[in-house]
């Protein structure tokens, strides 16, 4: 009897599984954070590019709507029209507050990459510098998108990867200065980065895959930031530095130069990869603003600017916003991303040429700006060259026209008119429309900060 009871109890204990080893179940679906090896480094390096790419279609489309370049007439989502154009102020609880979380996540990813690469025993010092330069360049670019969309609201600059604590907001100009400094630091690191990265870069970086050539890309971004800063109050010192940076970039304004040479986000139809969200098939509801037609200058033969006819097409019938009358009809659609996998530029030669022109205009050196302006007018637009830029104000008008058509739907115009104080040049299609000047800081960020000390609350959060 006793033996029977004992055996039953023993069976019970056995069934309980005395060990908890069975309870250790791994993470099947995603890698758990662990030590680095070369392949992880490659994944993390590529991860910076996928994360950054993920926000680009949204950026171009959103600032396209704000800058009256585009519309998004998705039938099942009338808020794509109403929330962007008619509901003031912009809703900070979603929808019109993009370009925030993923950008910060990528800044975190860049810092993570550096943190993981720095102690890696399998990397040389040069390789570590190359990783730092790479990560800092991309991190600066993400922060640029943050401040460009938030403008006067400012932004934090640092990310506390260890504790996830909130960092204080600083002014727009401080953020831009921080970006410039980060890019400069990255340039130094790239210069000490040896001959190759310890990972490979995708085809969008063709020609910029070594630390030395990647540095040209870095300098191009630095030039863009410096020119922005020039228009935002820094003035001549920034323009001068911008010209220096452009000189170290991949600018090429010699006859026959490829205006499209530059660095791109790439897409593919492979499983797990992404398509270009600005392509007409991927997103058939993105349409172009009808003002492109009337504003296009005429070529000698009376045809419109080549950039109008090559980047846009007429659709029939015209389309209007879904819902009740919050948009205007348009019969223009973009063709500049003809395939689902057409690469999306990050920065390219055509922009560099116009940046040099802008810096020169900013410095009052209109005659130096004229050849660059004419380079895009003639080579990209097929227009007659200008003989003079007129007044400084006229020169800016001309520059903005060139940027509008040369960099059409690449995410520039809204920034351009705003930083030049010409936001009022954007047309209001309907009396109920308004002109957005900043994208709001997301509600979640502000709700969180509302519980923190005063110095951590704003100014981005009202």
């Amino acid at each position, binding site marked *: 009897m006793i033996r029977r*009871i004992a055996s039953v109890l023993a*069976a*019970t204990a056995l*069934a*309980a599984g005395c060990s*908890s080893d069975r*309870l*250790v*179940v791994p*993470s099947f*679906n*995603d*890698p*758990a954070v662990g030590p680095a090896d070369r392949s992880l480094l*490659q994944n*993390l390096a*590529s*991860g*910076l*590019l*996928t994360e950054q*790419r*993920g926000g680009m279609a949204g950026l171009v489309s959103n600032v396209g709507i704000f800058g009256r370049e585009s519309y998004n007439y*998705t039938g*099942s*989502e009338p808020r794509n029209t109403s*929330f962007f154009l*008619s*509901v003031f102020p912009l*809703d900070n609880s*979603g929808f019109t507050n993009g370009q925030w*979380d993923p950008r910060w996540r990528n800044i975190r*990813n860049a810092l*993570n990459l550096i943190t993981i690469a720095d102690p890696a025993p399998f990397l040389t010092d040069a390789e570590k510098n190359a990783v730092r330069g790479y990560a800092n360049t991309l991190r600066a670019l993400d922060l640029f998108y943050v401040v460009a969309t938030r403008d006067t609201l400012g932004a934090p600059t640092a*990310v506390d*990867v260890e504790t*996830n604590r*909130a*960092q204080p907001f600083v002014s727009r100009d401080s953020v831009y200065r921080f970006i410039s400094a980060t890019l400069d630091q990255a340039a130094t690191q790239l210069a000490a980065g040896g001959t190759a990265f310890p990972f490979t870069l*995708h085809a*969008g970086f063709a020609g910029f895959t070594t630390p030395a050539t990647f540095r040209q890309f870095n300098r191009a971004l630095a030039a863009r930031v410096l020119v922005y800063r020039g228009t935002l109050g820094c003035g001549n010192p920034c323009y001068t530095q911008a010209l220096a940076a452009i000189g170290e970039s991949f600018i090429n304004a010699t006859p026959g130069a490829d205006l499209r040479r530059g660095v791109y986000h*790439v897409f*593919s*139809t*492979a499983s797990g*990869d992404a398509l270009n969200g600005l392509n007409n098939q*991927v997103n*058939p*509801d993105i349409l172009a603003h009808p003002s492109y037609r009337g504003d296009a200058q005429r070529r000698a033969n009376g045809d419109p600017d080549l950039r109008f006819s090559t980047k846009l097409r007429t659709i029939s*019938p015209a*389309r209007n916003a*879904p*819902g*009740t009358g919050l948009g205007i009809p348009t019969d223009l659609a973009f063709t500049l991303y003809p395939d*689902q996998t057409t690469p999306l530029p990050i920065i390219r030669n055509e922009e560099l040429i116009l940046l040099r022109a802008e810096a020169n205009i900013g410095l009052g050196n209109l005659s130096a700006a004229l050849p660059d302006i004419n380079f895009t007018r003639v080579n990209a637009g097929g227009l007659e060259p200008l003989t003079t830029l007129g007044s400084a104000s006229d020169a800016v008008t001309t520059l903005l026209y060139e940027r509008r058509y040369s960099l059409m739907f690449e995410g520039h115009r809204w920034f351009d008119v705003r930083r030049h104080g010409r936001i009022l040049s954007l047309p209001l299609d309907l009396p*109920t429309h308004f002109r957005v000047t900043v994208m709001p800081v997301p509600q*979640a960020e502000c*709700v969180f*900060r509302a*519980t923190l000390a005063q110095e951590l609350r704003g100014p981005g959060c009202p």
Partner: protein
Amino acid sequence: MLAIHPRPVVARSGADAGADTPSFPVATRRPSRGVGGTRLGDSPPMRLFRQCAVALALVAIAAADLVAQRRITGRVTEEGTTTPLGSASVQVAGTTTGTYTAANGTFALTAPAGQVTLRIRRIGYQLRTVVVPAGQGSVDVALKRDILQLETQVVTGQQGSIERRNAATAIVQVTAEELNRVPAVSPEQALQGKVVGARINMNSGAPGGGGQIQVRGVTSVLGNGEPLFVIDGVIMSNASIASGANSITRAGGAGAIATVQDNRTNRLADINPAEIEDIQVLKGAAASAIYGSRATNGVVIITTKRGRSGQPRWNVTQRFGTSEILRTVGQRRFPDTASAIAAATLAANATIAREQVIAALNANGGTLPYNEFTSQLFGRTPLSWQTSASVTGGNENTRYSASVGRAFDGGLAVNTDNTRDNARINIDQNVTSRLTARLDLGYARQRANRGISNNSNTPVTSPLYVFGATPSFMELRTRDAQGNFPVNRFGGNANPINASNPFQTLQFVQNEEDVDRIIGAGELNYQAYTSPTHQLRASVLFGFDRFNQENQVYSPNFLQYEPSDGQLGTAVESNGASRQSNLLARVNYEFAPRSLPFRASTEVGATQEEQGLVLTRVRAIGLVPGVPNVNQGQQITTQSRELQRDQAIYVRQQLLAFDDRLFLQGSLRGDRSSNNGDVAKFFLFPGVQGSYRFVNAIPGIDEFKLRASYGETGNRPLYGQRFVILGGNGLIGGVNGLGAVATLGNPNIRPERMAETELGFDLFGFSRRVSLEFTNFDRRITDALLLRNLPNTSGVTTQFDNIGVLRTRGQEVALQVVPAQTRGFTWVSRTAFQRIRQWYGRADGVNPFPPNVGFGAAYGRPRIATGVSSTAIWGNRPVRLNVNGRDTIVVRDTVIAEGNPDFEMFFTNTFTAGRWSLAVQVDWRRGGAMSNVTQNVFDQYRNARDHDAASPCRGATLDREDCWILSGGRQVLVDTSATATLGAWRWQKWNNGQDARVYVQDGSFVKLREVALAYQVPSSLSRRLLGERVGDVRLSLVGRNLLMWSPYWGMDPEVSNFGNNNVGRFVDLAPFPPSRQVFFSLDVGF
């Protein structure tokens, strides 16, 4: 034994089937009388075990004591009728002698010489004792129905049970009879209105099911919110696996193959209600504490029918029925051509609108045709049928119960239906005199064609969504000579590839769900020691549940919307493989001292459980015509896998004392799980409960019982919440990118913990003709899993953490009255009432939004805020603020409605008159708001059926808050002209989400849930027609959801676009229409 008299009617088979439940002859209320002393445990294996023990004892005693005994024969019938009662237990009081009645009600046993007392009992009837004087050799006994179910056994733990009259917590029992009165698509539908304390809703009317059971309100936000389902000791999966319909509807965007908006089926639907003997629902924490960290949401214990010794007893049921759309949303009838053009222009453009209106006019002789699309598409009255057959039988050593069945449900739309096949065999076997075994095996196969429904984005494919955009003059049904459907130009912004014709879509799209499932259990029971005062038993139970769900979605290349993504054709193949198992070992000790007025029972057990689920999905676009395989075209694949293991040990102590008046139970369970941060740590969950019965203390009141209990249960985290991971953020240049994910895992995560106090009383009066059960409960869920807010500027936004507090208070009342109980006529009336108030306790630093629920502030959605109802609907509305002394109006996201009903009531009345019986169940829900996004779509395109009704704002001024909107920070009147319309007012007032209140609407309803009229054919007639062996034959006419009264505009306020959801099941967006059903049924027993 030959069946001379007809067997009880099949309608009672639920109660009948359990006739062996009161274990005999230990089923005495006096410990000294039984072999086992106590009878606290009464689950199937315990029953089995006891029967076996008794049978053996009988043989031994009979052999020894034959000399001094005499024979008593008799017959047991139902009081007031001549219906014989089979399987009733007849026992000689004070001895271990006893037997069961045969199907014709007769019994024969040997009893001691001299006067004896017989105790006769049967499930569903009240216990009766009869004195048989020394000289009397036969006795006829009539049993009264136990209408109040006082004597049924209710479970009190993993395996224990107790008579309902003693239970110290409110446990709901639903019998087979109640479950199967009216056919249901899935068990949860059959449970609607029968479980006081549970909110049960069907998410749509698509064939194959899809419903939610929520016991006592919201128990979790991020964790599991569904009850634990246990079938014959097997912990079964109730997973809801999305089909991949998102690949067509794009409800969650084009990137995902499948989303929660895919009108998911929860796998409880695989269980055949006809196999079920009874369902018990443990609601409170004290009752379910023995299930530890999976018990917070309540435990639903399903017991299937088991075999009884005797001749094979067959039962065949055939049902035929049909269904019909419960309600249609209608379509606008345009008052004139101009308004038709105006509406059509919104859904396309002016050119197309004019062209289509003219075409419609020309085709219809100059007047605008009117099409009511919803009834046209969902207007079928399909044939449904169910066939089932079962047999039970066996001898003393082997008993079996086997059943097969097929149920076919036709869908309201073409190409939609569901077929469910079930087979089950349950075997009980005595191995040795001390060892018994049980082996159960159930198989299920479901094939559902679910159609397309719910939310949709470009291209718009969900039928109701398309109907919202399509003006009623369009003729969508008629195919041309080549068989092509008309191209619908509306809803796609003038581009037909972004729109669709639902008649074409449902005709050709396949959305097929195919499930194969095996659930099985094996159990060994060993009686280690038995004496009149001590009993020691041990058992080991192994259960498994394995299913494979295959979903195939195929959208052929030629469909109108197919070019929309640049590729023709879409195919999805997805596979969900679920594998679960559980092992339970336990030892039970029962102590019944002769000299002391109590019985005690102690149970110690250990469990080990494992649940694995692997989901693999492939989608291909750009197909070779006619080939639904995913081989060709651009493919994307996803796979996810989860695995969780749990271990637990528990102890339960029960005490029944003072003539069974005092009942006390205490339990403690320790749980650990692979999902917790610390996998080695045991989390302890205690439970205590007690009740005392006052018998005949007050005149007219037979019994008054006070109950009190306190318990703690847990809800362990979900798989993966403990991992800090790098997420794949996509492929680029052929390399997988990795990076931080938005939500950080938490390595310190632990189970949510619920503490609940339940107080109540039960009152039985007027000779058991009235019973009143009242329960009040108060729950506090701490360590609730919520997302802790992190500054988004840290690169991560939230982290799982045990930081929430959820509070729930509620009352449940169940009143049963027997207004008439005369010879030949019985009327039983049951009324149940339930109300719940639930809110968030402290919730600081928490992300206020539960993930993946709702469409945002414009339409209403849940949020988390301290002190605010967890089921509150938040949304935009203009509010007046005083800013710097100035009256300012701004849009704010605030609480605008409550998704939880004010209360629910269920009324069931059963009338039995001779051979006729009628059961009527009415459900009433008051309150419970719905976010009517379906109406919003119809209004967007001015197609709502009531669009042209008068606006409430005709002639209104600014002092009417419902008549102004905010524009540029100023109040602007909506259209107040004498021609202003209702539809335009709603849309204007909503004004692109600035006032969400317009579409958040009252979801109150009264539903005629079940009606069942049954007639038992006289046995003389049935035998003449069907042969001598035939026992009872019953005909019935039954209906489900026959009528609904509701102010709600939509088809049914029970639907849910997001399917099963802890806090946000109030979104109505283009659901598959719910239906009403009528069945004719024939039951034959022989």
